[in-house]
């Protein structure tokens, strides 16, 4: 089950938007399409599993969605004040706290999700196919 052309076109289209953002010097036009690219890239990565179990789409949706929610929040709270407010969260400005306690851990959570949805049965089947030469048929 190979990645369909349509998902590659979606990936490329979003990359074009980021490129346009670079020329228009709009950081939002660079970043926001790229956050969707993250979800598309994960979908491409687990395409075979998604085709068999469409419910697995929760993985790319929650990772990309999580980034979008966090960056939009950061965008909103830092619009008038680069610190994001005058309060402190664990001694940090709200903006910095959102970055270090939200955006940084989300990357590690995405890796954790990879481990949690990992299917050992699928791997066993794949290893057997290569060992027995069945993959060559």
């Amino acid at each position, binding site marked *: *089950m*190979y*990645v369909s*052309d349509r998902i*590659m076109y979606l990936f*490329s289209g979003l*990359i*074009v938007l*980021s*490129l346009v*953002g*670079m020329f228009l*010097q*709009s*950081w*939002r036009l*660079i*970043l926001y399409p*790229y956050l969707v*690219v*993250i979800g598309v*890239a*994960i979908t*491409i*990565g*687990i*395409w*075979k599993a998604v085709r068999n179990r469409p419910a697995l789409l929760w993985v790319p949706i929650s990772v990309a969605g999580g980034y979008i929610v966090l960056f939009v929040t*950061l965008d909103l709270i*830092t619009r008038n004040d*680069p*610190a*994001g407010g005058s309060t*402190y969260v664990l*001694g*940090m*400005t709200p*903006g*910095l706290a959102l*970055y270090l306690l939200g955006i*940084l*851990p*989300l*990357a*590690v959570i*995405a*890796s*954790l999700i*990879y*481990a949690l949805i*990992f299917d*050992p049965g699928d*791997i066993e089947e*794949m*290893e057997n*196919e*290569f060992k027995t030469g069945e*993959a*060559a*048929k």
Partner: protein
Amino acid sequence: MNVTIVSIVGFYLLVCILIGVWATRRTKSASDFLVAGRSLGMFVMAIAAFTSIQSGFGLLGGAGQTFTGGMGFAAGVLIAAPLGFALTWFLVGKRIWAMGEMGDVFTLGDVVEKRYNSRAVRGWLGFAITLGVIGYLGTQVQAMGVIMHSIFGVSPAVGALIGLGILAFYSVGGGIIASVYTDLFQGVIMIIVSIVIFFFALNVGGGMQNITETLQSSDPLLASPFGNFSLITIACWFLLFSLGAAGQPHFINKFLMIKSAKELRWGAFTAGLAYAITVLLVVSIGLTARSLQIQGRFPEVASADDSLVVFVTTFTPSIIGGLVLAGLLAAIMSTGSGFVTLGAASLVRDIPRAFGKEIKNELLWNRVVVFVLLVVSTLFSFYMDTLVALLGVFGWGTFAAAVFPAVVLGLVWKRATKQGAITSIILGVSLNFAFEILNKYGITLLPEGVVVGAISLVISILGFVVVSLMTQPQESAEMEQPPLKAMEG
């Protein structure tokens, strides 16, 4: 010279030598030398992947950039890299491993030749990787000299020679086995040091809120998530250092080394978590050092990149200082050893095979070429500073732009063609080189703040897709079954 620091670093170097001796005994074939005989478990592979991405640039440069301009560098580069591990594992972890199962696949050149059934793609990829390796090695030699100088008080040239001698000892004999097991040792040092130094730095700075308030009193931007950096640059970095991670050859070739696909499961989490922990070291030292400087409590530094070394030698006990400096040396040497083996594989295997020639006794020639590469990069760094600086631009961005489309997208998209792959490799190398050289001579073609590597990556991806669509075979030529099976993921 501080005796405790010298002893700790001396012990670290001795362990590297011992690992080299052990690895040399284990290395009996080209497969052992290049892919560790496909024998690695999850933890060794994941920590080797993490150390190959976290280099001296990330630690020394990251702390320096945070010291100078606040969190912008960390927000764009260091916080994107852990996401890079997740994306890479999702996109190609299983696929590259499966390509390795097809037999006689030791390099990314082998992978692309099987994928595209094209020696030309292998040759172009080998060429791009070789250029990058020489540039990277030259800069690692220079960085090693600086660190050895600050530890042992010897001249940077002598320091570089001592470090290189040890690097050569374990890399020539033990190849990638020596590289990944020294990486394991070095990675563990980096993780421990980062945790210790994080709490230490906060304590020296009087707590997080005190640091934040001091930074705000000088410049409110220093306590913001973006510091004094341009938001466009940060957005470009975020894209380049997360998606582009999957294009780093010294990282993704490690998927060829694991013994079973089951070992993939916890690898991304281990590598990502390890990297995220080292971000704490960079951020805590950078921000604390700056707040101490604002208070007039930090010594003068000649360059912002010195802030990390000055902080640990001035404000931490010698034992922690020694561990941090050993960790820094570890970051530089682990990157160097991974690259030198990668370069040898390109020169001994990929480029000759691209011309239809197979080298006999690959193990011997890989060892010879590793030694030659180390000598050449040392001579370049000593006598051809400008050339090293120019080749040094073949860094992350060039690898991302040249390798990501051809290898990563090629392995997930069936309609990718060899013409598309070659186009993207040529675009990746030439755009990075042209933009950087023009920048060096004061000619700026790109909009302000746009990062060369990021724009080269996106253009290279688009070139790959467009040319692949334009060069579809008239009659659908079926690919061989094993690569197709591997591409299913």
